[in-house]
């Protein structure tokens, strides 16, 4: 994929951040640094949603992004997914500084996102949803047999449990829908996959299925950013946690060094002074 079609390279295509690409995070399963965000700011009118956020994600790493409501998690991820343009700061992907003007720019840099609403069509079948907008064709016609074959392969590889690729999305459970949405995002072969509250409103068994998928995706070398309010999920799948508070990234720690009480304290800033929090 040509770099011209993706994010804008800063400085006429020069690689600005020489550290990226060979840096090691040194945490958990993480490998080479995939993405670095530094000093990201974003304002909506008078409201400053992001006030200088730093974030780093490594190959095959599952990073939990946590924070209270309004901390700026979703805004930050929309910036990384190209849905929102940031005001200041830098995004480095694979060693190159980029600036995204649209979600297509982010996709071209192999950054995928699954929003909370999943972006699926209830009346289309599983295969049609997986290939929506890029259906395999034979001449002018959709090659349905090939589409269903590829869909079955995709779902089997990720151990997604649906009865058939012909099942309509509207007939699936919440967990199955989430799994299909993740499979769709994975089919774009992302290097970075952002999941926004993937386990919200799911039954226990379904949560386990989704968490298992996250581990499988990360095992393929994909860097996963997981936004969730379910703290127990973080301890099951994450390697590292970045905590946001009022538009800033305030803590970054390996999950192995944390327990749930410490994490709650980090999120609510109950163990810091007012001056530190500010």
């Amino acid at each position, binding site marked *: 994929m040509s770099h011209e079609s993706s994010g804008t390279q800063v400085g006429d295509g020069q690689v600005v951040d020489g550290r990226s690409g060979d840096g090691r995070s040194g945490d958990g399963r993480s490998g080479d640094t995939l993405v670095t965000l530094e000093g990201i700011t974003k304002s909506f009118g008078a409201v400053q949603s992001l006030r200088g956020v730093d974030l780093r994600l490594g190959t095959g790493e599952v990073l939990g992004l946590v924070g209270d409501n309004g901390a700026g998690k979703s805004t930050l991820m929309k910036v990384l997914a190209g849905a929102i343009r940031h005001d200041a700061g830098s995004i480095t992907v694979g060693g190159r500084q980029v600036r995204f003007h649209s979600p297509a720019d982010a996709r071209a840099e192999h950054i995928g996102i699954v929003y909370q609403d999943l972006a699926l069509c*209830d*009346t289309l079948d599983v295969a049609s949803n997986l290939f*929506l907008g*890029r259906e395999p064709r034979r001449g002018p016609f959709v090659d349905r047999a090939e589409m269903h074959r590829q869909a*079955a392969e995709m779902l*089997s590889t990720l*151990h997604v449990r649906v009865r*058939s*690729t012909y099942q309509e999305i509207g007939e699936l459970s919440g967990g199955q829908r989430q799994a299909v949405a993740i499979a769709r995002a994975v089919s774009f072969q992302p290097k970075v996959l952002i999941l926004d509250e993937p386990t919200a409103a799911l039954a226990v068994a379904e949560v386990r299925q989704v968490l298992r998928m996250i581990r499988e995706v990360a095992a393929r070398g994909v860097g996963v950013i997981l936004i969730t309010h379910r703290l127990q999920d973080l301890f099951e799948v994450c390697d590292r946690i970045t905590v946001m508070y009022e538009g800033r990234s305030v803590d970054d720690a390996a999950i192995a060094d944390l327990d749930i009480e410490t994490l709650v304290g980090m999120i609510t800033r109950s163990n810091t002074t007012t001056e530190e929090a500010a």
Partner: protein
Amino acid sequence: MTTQVESPPQRDLAAQPSWWERVNKATVAMLGVTVALFIGFGLASPNFLTFGNMSNLATQVAITLIVAIAMTFVITTGQIDLSVGSTVAFVAAMTAELLQLGLDSSLVIVVGLLAGLFWGSVNGWLSAYQNIPPFIVTLAAMSIIRGFALLWTEGFSVPIDRRLFVAKIGEAEFLGFSALAWIALATTVAGGILLSRMRFGRYVNGIGAQEESVRRAGVNTRRIKMITLMLTGLAAGAAGILTAARLGSGSANAAEGFELTVIAAVVLGGTNLFGGRGTIVGTVIGALITGMIANGLTLMGVSPFLTPIVTGLVLIAAIWINLRGRSLAQLVSHLTARRT
């Protein structure tokens, strides 16, 4: 920590489900209604099930079906087009006027189709790109387009010379069926392929279900919505030419209430009135039902004024089934399901 869960065999995942699982249940219900009407009218009137009457029924249904096929796409995207009757009248009147001016039939046909396409484009642009609800746009267009036709013809019916090619289309037959019926069949096949075999059809269904999801998949949903309204315009243009051909005249008062017949045919067949699920086979069934009621009641010697009342009642029943088709189907599936 990883839990090993066995995934279903790949070949089973991609195996096509049974016909019953795939088929639109509301369409099956309406197919049952069609069969019942065939039997009922066949018993009530000995002339109903003759080849001559079936050929006649095909001709009567043809014009409705041509526009209903296009309307299936519009309704499946969650839109509506109320202006098709007026477009039919406008093009019918224009066809007659232009032939009277001495223009060649082939040129008149092209101009008629382009006129329909033009009105469809106006509707499509205003609703898809200017975000005016299609109900409002096409309601206004319904008045404007017929108004132009009335202004042009001053309310008079304009005759067409029966020796002209356009008029001969209305009388032509092949294998015992009228040219109109064959044109309707060709339109149906084209519509079926477009809706179920091509990307366009998938996007039409997807837009009706969750437009934002289709848009995020990189599809230009506005363009798709505009094209569907252009299709109804084009189909109404063709219907206008065929109406003039069949009647041997063009009138600005033609096809009044036609849009309701067309919408009824589409919804009767099982296309979801609120979008997301369209069926061309269903539309054929819906058009047959509307045509059969009129045809059968006429053969039975019932007052023609009763026809719209019966059609309206059938429409209400059909929409009831349309809204509850899936629930009924689920009930049937539940009752007939084998435990595995």
